């Protein structure tokens, strides 16, 4: 009985010790975080569109190989999130696969931030179907009718007598937003859209479903998918680099970086690097269309 009492006291001391250690650890990590906070001078935070993310990542890796004093951290989140973070000052550069909205500019100015636009590359949206699908070209009008639900069978656009499985991205995707603006306009999307959360999920479903149609960033086209040509007044355009840059291909868009007018020196240098010959070479290597 007495022995057990002693044991309890020992245990209590032990747990007291462990609580002290825990408290010390928390303190140390807090101090550590404080030190990290002070280092932000050399730290450039880039966040936003997931369509630009892979490009920004390889650009920053190459940049940091040359300028090892600068640390560039790149994260996704979506165009809207990136711009929202620029507005509240939690990043240095926002990536957006669309132009900044007027409301966002107003919000930014209210916060003392004046967004400056840098178009670093161009990008096309490829419309894709299963390789066994006989349909080769579509007009923008047909594409719109497929996604509004007016056209529901492949035979209506010269294909097999099969129902169309229309695949879209979630509303938070920059590609989806661009597609909606460029193809749909004011026309409502059909309710029975198969909605996927990532480009990979779209390609996976199109690869395994002969009735499917989807759209992805042109950089993600591959041999297991068939890219549909877009028919503009009788001339068919494929999402090739040339057609995207000239914007003859109807679904072409710019990829943007936004900074405050009063930008951190390191961030400005990084943007200049992107526009350099070397930076634009990486843009091409990553499957986007260079602008210079």
């Amino acid at each position, binding site marked *: 009985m007495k022995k057990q009492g002693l044991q309890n006291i020992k245990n209590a001391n032990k747990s007291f010790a462990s609580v002290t250690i825990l408290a010390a650890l928390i303190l140390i990590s807090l101090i550590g975080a404080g030190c990290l906070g002070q280092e932000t001078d050399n730290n450039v935070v880039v966040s936003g569109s997931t369509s630009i993310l892979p490009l920004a990542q390889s650009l920053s890796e190459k940049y940091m190989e040359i300028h090892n004093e600068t640390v560039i951290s790149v994260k996704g989140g979506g165009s809207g999130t990136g711009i929202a973070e620029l507005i509240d000052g939690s990043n240095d550069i926002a990536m957006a696969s669309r132009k900044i909205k007027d409301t966002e500019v107003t919000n930014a100015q209210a916060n003392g931030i004046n967004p400056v636009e840098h178009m670093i590359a161009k990008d096309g949206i490829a419309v894709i179907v299963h390789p066994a699908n006989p349909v080769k070209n579509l007009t923008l009008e047909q594409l719109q009718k497929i996604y509004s639900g007016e056209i529901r069978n492949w035979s209506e656009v010269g294909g097999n007598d099969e*129902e169309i499985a229309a695949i879209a991205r979630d509303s938070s995707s920059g590609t989806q937003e661009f597609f909606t603006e460029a193809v749909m306009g004011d026309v*409502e999307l059909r*309710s029975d859209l198969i909605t996927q959360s990532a480009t990979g*999920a779209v390609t996976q479903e199109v690869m395994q479903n002969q009735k*499917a149609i989807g759209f992805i960033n042109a950089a993600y086209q591959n041999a297991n998918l068939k890219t549909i040509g877009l028919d503009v007044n009788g001339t068919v355009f494929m999402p090739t680099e040339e057609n995207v840059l000239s914007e003859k291909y109807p679904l072409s868009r710019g990829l943007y970086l936004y900074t405050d007018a009063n930008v951190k020196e390191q961030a400005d240098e990084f943007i200049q690097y992107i526009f350099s010959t070397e930076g634009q070479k990486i843009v091409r290597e990553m499957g986007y269309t260079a602008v210079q």
Partner: protein
Amino acid sequence: MKRNMRNFNEKTMKFLFFIGGIGTILILLLICFFLLAETANFLKTYPIWDFLTGTEWKPDEASRKFGLLPLLAGTFITTFGAVLLAVPIGILSAVYIAELAGPKTAEILKPAVELLAGIPSVVLGFFGLVLLVPTFQSAFDLTTGQTALTGSIILAIMALPTIISVSEDAISSVPASLKQGSFALGSNHWQTIYKVTIPAALSGISAAVILGVGRAIGETMAVMMVTGNMAIIPWSEPFLSSVRTITATIALEMGEVAQGTEHYYALFTIGAVLFLLTIIINGIADAVKRKHHRGE
């Protein structure tokens, strides 16, 4: 001196535990408050009737329709399907582990069931997407294999460990005297299981089922990957149509939604609906469990 120190330790520890206990409740209260505040913001601009009875969920600028019904239908259909699949399998394996399996078999089966609970949902989702989806599409000749049924199967796999381990506990805790009485009256093993053991453990098994439902209703990632996320109410073929659950909608649309917009508040509002559903389910499970303990 030593006594004082001991007293101090005692008090400090008590205080730390108190902070820990209160902290959890505080977090819960904060989340409730936050959800309610954002819901109120949504209902200020969007009529509650349109939200509750709306049959279309179209958050894009052109449409701005936030109808709850298709999402609620998606959540109910996938969860109901999961229960239909998981409950019989779960109860059968619980009975097997508790009553029929030899000690060695049970020793392998129990950790195996727990291991099933450890598979990350994204892995199950991927398995569903590349294996179940194309199989169902060709088997039922569908427009797409991403259906409520595939979602239900994945959810059933995820709910099984909960259902099995909780019902196995309930079955094991049926007093041996009840079973011995049944044997003494001349019943065989099978008769004892379904006339005595299962009825005696029924409230525990019901609690297991309800907890499994709770597990299924809140799952996001795997469901989002395999159900096609079509925001429609599938009247004609509920299980072979694509559906969209509440959780998937939040996960899909949260990323890009501009803060402070109607869409942003709408996502919090459906989050509050989901929270309410979970509270109700947990409440039922608690009530059933209490009944179970009184029964003992």
